[in-house]
């Protein structure tokens, strides 16, 4: 087990979650697991990567919201760091609960840990339940195709699914666009292994210039955009839904552009900062 600081435990209990006397919430989120894992993640967040966060005020401090992000980097680094930012930065902290691929449900150990951290198998029933219980949901409408992006495609967006938007309409949930920039630099995928992956039961295995997809310590940028409200009941025609999905997609693309634009300046600042604290 990881030694947990008082500060970390305090943040866990500041979360708006109905933990029972054993520190377990109705979705199986475990206070002790959160504290331990966020202890590790906070080191990555503050010390290994340099994470730049912008627009935190757009995330409401309570109530249902749907964070809709772009995939960046060959695996869930984007989601994990977004979760970490929302746990460490705002007061009170918030727990962003990710919609995971189905294999998370079957996978021993890793699946169990993900669930104890609040991840949920990504089916509509689960998303609806979380939102009806005023949770903060983190979704990636690009799906697995998004994490398969190669280095050269790192700041582009692939097709969005439309399910998230109908869900937001049905549950009357605001959508908060989130851009993640730098994942492609941290894990520059040069190609993906598919055949071996299928054998191991995962969709693909990203390969970087140094082989396995261990991220390098680069700058990561997270931009939270302004909440977008759509009015409807979720049974609209596809053509309307697609227009609204594109609105969300464009909002994210705009945030990504901003991130790409600012990246150089932020990295210079980083170099200056690390020059002061050499490790």
């Amino acid at each position, binding site marked *: 087990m990881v030694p947990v600081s008082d500060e970390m435990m305090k943040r866990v209990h500041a979360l708006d979650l109905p933990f*029972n006397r*054993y520190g377990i919430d109705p979705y199986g989120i475990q206070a002790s697991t959160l504290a331990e894992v966020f202890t590790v993640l906070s080191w990555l967040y503050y010390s290994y990567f340099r994470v730049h966060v912008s627009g935190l005020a757009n995330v409401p401090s309570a109530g249902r919201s749907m964070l809709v992000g772009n995939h960046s980097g060959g695996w869930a680094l984007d989601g994990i760091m977004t979760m970490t930012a929302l746990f460490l930065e705002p007061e009170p902290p918030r727990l962003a609960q990710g919609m995971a691929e189905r294999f998370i*449900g*079957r996978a*021993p150990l890793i699946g169990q840990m993900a669930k104890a951290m609040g991840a949920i198998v990504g089916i509509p029933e689960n998303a609806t*339940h979380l939102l009806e219980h005023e949770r903060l949901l983190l979704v990636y409408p690009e799906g697995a195709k998004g994490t398969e992006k190669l280095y050269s495609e790192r700041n582009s967006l692939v097709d969005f699914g439309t399910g998230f938007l109908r869900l937001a309409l049905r549950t009357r949930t605001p959508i908060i666009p989130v851009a993640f920039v730098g994942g492609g630099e941290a894990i520059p995928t040069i190609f993906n292994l598919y055949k071996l992956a299928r054998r191991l039961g995962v969709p693909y295995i990203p390969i970087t210039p140094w082989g396995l997809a261990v991220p390098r310590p680069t700058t990561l940028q997270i931009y939270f955009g302004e909440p977008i409200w759509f009015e409807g009941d979720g049974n609209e025609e596809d053509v309307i839904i697609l227009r609204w999905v594109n609105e969300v997609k464009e909002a994210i693309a705009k945030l990504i552009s901003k991130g790409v634009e600012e990246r150089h300046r932020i990295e210079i600042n980083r170099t200056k900062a690390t020059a002061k604290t050499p490790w």
Partner: protein
Amino acid sequence: MKVLITGVSSVPGRLVAELLSRNGHQVMGIDRRPWPGAPSQIPVHRVDLRKRPAEDVFRTFRPEAVVHMATVSYLERSSDDLRHNNLGSTKKVFEYCHNHGAKKAIFVGRHTVYGAASDSPIYHFEDAPPMAGSLYPELADLVAADLYAGQALWRYPELDSVILRIVYELGPHRHSTLATFLEGPKIPTILGFDPLFQFMHEHDIARAIVSALDHSIRGVFNVAGPTPVPLSLLAHETGRTPISLPEVLFPFITGRFGFSRLPPAALDHIKYPILVDDRAFRKATKFAHSYDESDAMIGFRTGDAAKTTNKV
């Protein structure tokens, strides 16, 4: 009110009968098993629900309400004779209700009908498809009985049918599906999995069934109590030792070396959770559980029905 309870000799059956009797109802029971020491004001008829003498009980007692608790799950029994008991006897009970003027029928079912699967919703609503039948042949009869009972909702419009899908029972009587699993000192768990278990104290189950009777409701309702807890915690708090083993070793150890026994098909039940959303029932009946998860686990461990906490 005149209430007839089938399966009255089971632990929850007795608790419901006693509670109803205390509340001033006229209670009668049916069971093939005896209820030694049954209160004198609760006559018990030892008949088979599928045979004619059972109908005679309906005919002469003419109950206004029937609580059908005579369902068995495969973890408790497994003889071939009982395989079709649930569906066949459920058909008869609803037929008798219809033929002999009952106004309300409560089918006491289980939340396990939804099935345990890796990709199923974390919380099941009442309209979720009950998958357990095709996942576990042993549960097919229970699923069919549950769904068949639901058909009474349109087949017999004059009868208020209520199908309850209740979570696992746990408490001092130590006689339930979950209690059987928690029998041994060592509880086998599967390495890398720690599913949530949803259970309620036996007294809360009896109270929930009585509230279903007291309120004018009809339909299918999930019934649950406190927050679910992970299997490892459940084992610890009930004084057992959870032992994590790789899944491949399971066939060799259950029922031996001090481990609880577990039918092979039940393996998924300790890998994946089966959780139900009970908002509809609470809203319709104002039911609130009075024993929390700790009360139920400690009650099971100590055999003491007293509450350990001051929660209500």
